[in-house]
C-alpha cells in the first residue's frame, strides 16, 4: 500500500502521531498546520493525493470549510476525506458528512482503525 496523504491538524503531536502510523504503513505524508495551510498544500502538489485526513477545530480555516472548498474543486471531488476530531456528538458527524467527508473518527486515533479505514476508502 502506498500513496500520498495530507494530514491537517493544529496539534504538532497529532500530526506527528498520524505521520508515524501512516509512514509505518507505507504512505508518504505531508502535514499541514491548519486548514489554510492544507488547502495550499493540496493545490500545490503535482502528484495526486490518496487521502486527506483533517481535524475540525483549526485556526485560519476550520475542517468543515477545508472540506467544502476541496469538494468544490473538480480535482478534489473524489478524494477520500477522513475527519479525525475530538468533537464526538452526532451533530458534528452530520456536519462533517454534509461538508463532504467520507468518514469520521474520534480522537485519540486507534492506529489499526485508521489504517483499516484508509484501506477501505482507497479500495485496497
Amino acid at each position: 500500500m502506498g500513496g500520498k496523504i495530507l494530514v491537517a491538524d493544529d496539534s504538532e503531536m497529532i500530526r506527528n502521531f498520524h505521520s508515524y502510523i501512516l509512514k509505518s504503513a507505507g504512505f508518504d505524508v505531508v502535514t499541514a498546520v491548519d486548514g489554510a495551510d492544507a488547502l495550499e498544500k493540496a493545490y500545490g502538489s503535482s502528484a495526486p493525493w490518496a487521502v486527506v485526513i483533517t481535524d475540525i477545530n483549526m485556526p485560519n480555516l476550520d475542517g468543515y470549510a477545508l472540506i467544502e472548498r476541496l469538494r468544490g474543486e473538480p480535482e478534489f471531488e473524489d478524494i477520500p476525506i477522513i475527519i479525525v476530531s475530538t468533537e464526538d456528538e452526532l451533530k458534528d458527524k452530520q456536519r462533517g458528512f454534509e461538508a463532504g467527508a467520507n468518514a469520521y473518527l474520534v480522537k485519540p486515533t486507534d492506529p489499526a482503525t485508521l489504517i483499516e479505514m484508509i484501506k477501505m476508502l482507497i479500495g485496497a
Partner: protein
Amino acid sequence: MPGIDELIKSLNSASEKERAFAAEDLGYENSDESVSALVERLQVEDSRFVREVIVNALKSMDTPLLINTVVSLLYSDDAFTRNSAIDILAGLGDKAVDGIRPLLADPSKDVRKFVLDIAFHIGGAEAKAVLAEALSDPEVNNVITAVEYLGRLESTEYTDRINELLRSTGNLLLRCTCLEALARIGDETSQEIVTRLYPDYESIGELEKYSYLKFIAGKGTRDHLPLLLSFMREKGPLMVKEIINALEGILQRNGYDLLPSELLSEIVHFIGSPINDINRYELLVLLGEYKNPEIYSLFLRYLQPENKLACLGAVEGLGLYGNRDAVTYLNNLRQHTHDDELLEAIERSLELLRGRGGDCWAD
C-alpha cells in the same frame, strides 16, 4: 469619521464593501458599544471576507467588555466563530488568562480544550500554570494537549508532572507526547524512567520508536549509541530523519574526535542507502567534525556536482575536516560547476583550509 451609530448602520448594509469599511472603523472606535456591534454581526455575517475584517478589528481592540463578550463565542456552534474567539483572546495576552481560567472547570471538554489553545498562544508563566492545571483533566485528549503545549513552551517547571505521567500512563499517544515533550524539558529522572520503560530495542513499541528517538535526540547519552545502531539497521529508510537528529544530538553533547568504527561504518552505509539528498547533505556535514581517515575518502567520493546537495555536504565537510590535500580537489571542482551556492561553499572551505596554514590559492 462617521459617528458610531452610522457605522453600526453601515455594518448591516447590503454592500459587502461598506460592511467591511464599517467593521474596520468600528475597530478604531475601540468602545464596548463597537465590540457588541461587531460580535453581533460576526454571528450572522455570511461573507467570509467581512467576517475576517470583523475578527481583525476585534483583535485590535481592548475594552472592558471585550474579554467576556468574546469568551461567550467559545460556545458557538460555528467553527469559524469559535476559532476567532481563540485568536482574539490569545492576542490579548496575560489579561485574558484570568478570563479563561474558570473555563477549565467547564463541563464541555471542547471548551476546556479551547482554553488550552488560548493559553498556549499567550505563553508566559500564568498561561503555563493554566496548562499545568489541565494535566489533571478527566479527558485524556486534553491532558495530551497540555503536555504537548508545556513541552513546546519549554516549561521545565512542570517536568516532574510530565515525568509522572510518562511513568504511569497506559495510553500510547500520551506516552509518545510525554517522550517528545521531555525531549525538550526532560531531566535525569526522565532518563531513568525512559531507560526503565525501554530497556532494549525490542521493548520499544513500533509507533513509540519515533518519539523515543526524539527523546534520545534531546536527552540521549553515549549509552544510547548501541541502541541507535539497531535503529539504523532496522529502521533506516523509514525513520531516517529521527535517527539523524538522535545521532546529532548525542554526538554534539559528547566530545568525540574519532567516531567509534562500528558507528562510522553504519553511518557510511546509511549515507549510501536510498535516503533523501537533504539527509545525505546533513550527514556529510556532520562527519566533517570527526577525524577518522575513512571520512576523507568518503567526501571525495561525493564531490560530484551532478548531485548538488550531496556535493555541497562533501564540500562543507572537507572544509571542516581540515585535510589540506583537499585544496586540489576543491579547486578542480570549482572549474566544473557554475552553481553559485556550490562556488560559495567551495570558497568558504578553501578559506577554512587556508586558515590551517599555507596558501591554498597556490595550485
